[in-house]
């Protein structure tokens, strides 16, 4: 029985030994393979964990890079920035419209700062929400209350969105889900103590505006002329009915006068109202005298209008003759841009001096040569396209009045004096209006048309908007902010000591340095104009709690 096995073994010499050795080798190899596999997986797991941490650190580095960039220049991240660090790469960019889920951002002035990184095949992304405005503009109403006043808002007002008042609030009417924060720790419902840190008044870099205002030179001359060209005259003094053909001797043979009614009646001061056609420019003034001079000499006469000498003329009278009254014209130089001292629409003063002791006057006429022209600094019922101006800037060194105009931007309207915009004036988006004094908007004017087509107003001494509609950023750095009977959409910033809102609907946010007075007004927290890429003097801010890894 055993012989066949032995025979087979003898016929396959070494087979058993080889087979058993191979078997052991294969088993060992398989086990080694698994051991190696486990070791590799374990090692990969550890490496993956480390790469995750490195990728996350790098994505945060990307955000830091982005924050530094937008702090210096909010527009510098218009295109993505990439970098390499620690054997990985990051990419950071700003999206003005959508968040990381491609949903619309909550407010127009929010932007998404998105950073993504990649190290060793591990990718991470993180984001922050950035506002174009400082933190205070996240409130519907913020008041630093520098003068330590007390805030009061009765039921005629409505505030939708949180407010912060740095001081005591005596009464306030808030919409549901809106909180009235105060800096007073003992505040009681419905007023809520804000807690620390308190929000701060934003810092405005005024040089953004003052640099431009300090460069204002020249005059704005309307392209529309007004008034009439021609000559107008008026007799301003007629003491002797225009006659002076009777000689009068005062007993001194050397002093004989030619006068109608005696030799007296001399007066060298008279007044007359403006009589040139409205809108005309006074170019030349002639003073016409009819009269007689003391006999026997050359005398000088020098009439003045409002203190400004017209001219000085010699007036000769022959001795001892009863002359008919002579006519003498004293003519001013021609003033193309208008006779400087002439008062339009008002009373003017005419004075004249004569070197003679006595002069008989038949009459005095004021003859004015005028022209149709524009009044510097006044624009009426015209279309102004700022792209037609140098550097797209309309400048006027003085007060600027725009009535019934249609102004299209983008561009600047700068004045060293007050700016008054009235009479249904319409101003398109992208127009920046800066005044070295005050800005007044009235008469159903329209400033901007939407939060994406808005205007920026900066009044160094004050800002007054009444009976109008405005979209944009409104800054008063002077003593007054007055908003009445208007609808305003956007951001209002005031350093004024007096802030008044009456019968106002404000969609956006208002930030004031001092207390403010509200009457029959509605403030609704809403989107503000997006300032991305625009230097307004404000620094952007990060919305707290908006950091998210995804």
């Amino acid at each position: 029985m055993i012989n066949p096995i032995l025979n087979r073994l003898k016929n396959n010499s070494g087979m058993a030994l080889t087979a058993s050795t191979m078997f052991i080798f294969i088993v060992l190899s398989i086990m080694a393979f698994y051991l190696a596999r486990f070791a590799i997986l374990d090692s990969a797991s550890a490496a993956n964990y480390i790469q995750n941490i490195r990728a996350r650190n790098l994505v945060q580095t990307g955000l830091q890079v982005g924050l530094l960039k937008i702090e210096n220049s909010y527009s510098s991240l218009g295109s993505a920035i990439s970098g390499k660090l620690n054997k990985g790469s990051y990419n950071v960019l700003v999206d003005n419209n959508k968040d990381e889920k491609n949903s619309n951002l909550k407010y127009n002035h929010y932007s998404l700062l998105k950073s993504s990184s990649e190290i060793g095949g591990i990718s991470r992304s993180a984001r922050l929400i950035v506002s174009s405005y400082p933190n205070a503009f996240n409130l519907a109403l913020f008041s630093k209350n520098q003068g330590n006043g007390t805030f009061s808002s009765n039921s005629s007002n409505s505030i939708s969105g949180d407010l912060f008042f740095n001081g005591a609030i005596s009464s306030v009417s808030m919409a549901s889900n809106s909180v009235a924060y105060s800096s007073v720790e003992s505040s009681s419902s419905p007023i809520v103590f804000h807690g620390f840190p308190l929000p701060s008044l934003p810092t405005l870099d005024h040089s953004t505006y003052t640099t431009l205002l300090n460069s204002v030179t020249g005059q704005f001359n309307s392209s529309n002329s007004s008034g009439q060209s021609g000559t107008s005259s008026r007799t301003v003094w007629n003491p002797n009915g225009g006659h002076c053909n009777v000689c009068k001797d005062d007993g001194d043979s050397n002093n004989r006068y030619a006068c109608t009614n005696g030799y007296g009646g001399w007066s060298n001061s008279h007044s007359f109202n403006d009589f040139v056609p409205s809108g005309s420019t006074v170019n030349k003034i002639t003073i016409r005298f009819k009269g007689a001079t003391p006999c026997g000499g050359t005398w000088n006469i020098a009439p003045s209008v409002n203190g400004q000498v017209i001219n000085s003329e010699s007036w000769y009278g022959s001795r001892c003759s009863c002359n008919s009254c002579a006519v003498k014209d004293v003519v001013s130089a021609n003033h193309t841009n208008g006779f400087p001292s002439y008062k339009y629409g008002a009373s003017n003063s005419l004075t004249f001096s004569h070197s003679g002791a006595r002069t008989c006057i038949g009459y005095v006429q004021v003859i004015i040569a005028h022209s149709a022209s524009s009044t510097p600094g006044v624009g009426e019922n015209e279309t102004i396209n700022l792209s037609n101006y140098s550097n797209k800037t309309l400048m006027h060194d003085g007060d600027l009045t725009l009535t019934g105009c249609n102004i299209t931007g983008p561009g600047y309207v700068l004045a060293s004096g007050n700016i008054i915009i009235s009479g249904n004036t319409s101003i398109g988006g992208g127009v920046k209006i800066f005044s070295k004094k005050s800005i007044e908007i009235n008469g159903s004017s329209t400033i901007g048309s939407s939060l994406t087509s808005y205007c920026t107003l900066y009044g160094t001494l004050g800002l007054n908007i009444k009976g109008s509609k405005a979209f944009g950023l409104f800054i008063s750095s002077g003593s007054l902010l007055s908003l009445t009977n208007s609808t305003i959409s956007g951001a209002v910033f005031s350093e004024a000591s007096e802030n008044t809102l009456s019968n106002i609907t404000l969609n956006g946010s208002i930030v004031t340095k001092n207390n403010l007075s509200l009457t029959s007004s509605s403030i609704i927290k809403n989107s503000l104009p997006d300032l991305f890429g625009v230097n307004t003097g404000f620094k952007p801010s990060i919305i707290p709690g908006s950091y998210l890894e995804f």
Partner: protein
Amino acid sequence: MKKTIYSGFSFVEVVISIAIASVISALSISMLLQGSDIFMDAKNDSRLLNESRAAVWRISRELHNLSSNHFLALSNDNRLYIKDANSNQIDFKIAGKMLKVNRSGKENPLAEFLHGTFKNKFKYVSTNNDTINGSANLSSVVASEVNLLKIDFKFLKDDAIIDIETHVYPYNFRFGRKMSYHD
């Protein structure tokens, strides 16, 4: 009749060969088993380490996204409740040896080797570096004072123990305090 001559291994040789092979195999298997035990121990340690790392990493990552300490109002020693900037709710809970995470209603185990007898805890540290009592749910007022989270966990598997005690700083907090008007 011709006598057949057998060449090759004799029976004795074969038996001896098998015996030697058996001895070698026995030794090898013994060594392999020993090596395997060592490997499995190391693997367990590694797994425990990875599990603890993953748990801490996940907690710290989610805590980075905590949008406001106000949302810690539902947290306590055994529970960490987080709401991120997209209003996603993430709920970490310690249940015996398990650490579970519930994100948007879906619960998954994050770790299953917490030390059974050690008191694993989430600890809350105020801005003054005081530890806040979390035996009950934090009130809204108390939660608003939380500045740091401290994770105090011990992991145990077989003989391996990993003790983790670390602070986590919510990254969002560096950008200021989130208020109701930061929507």
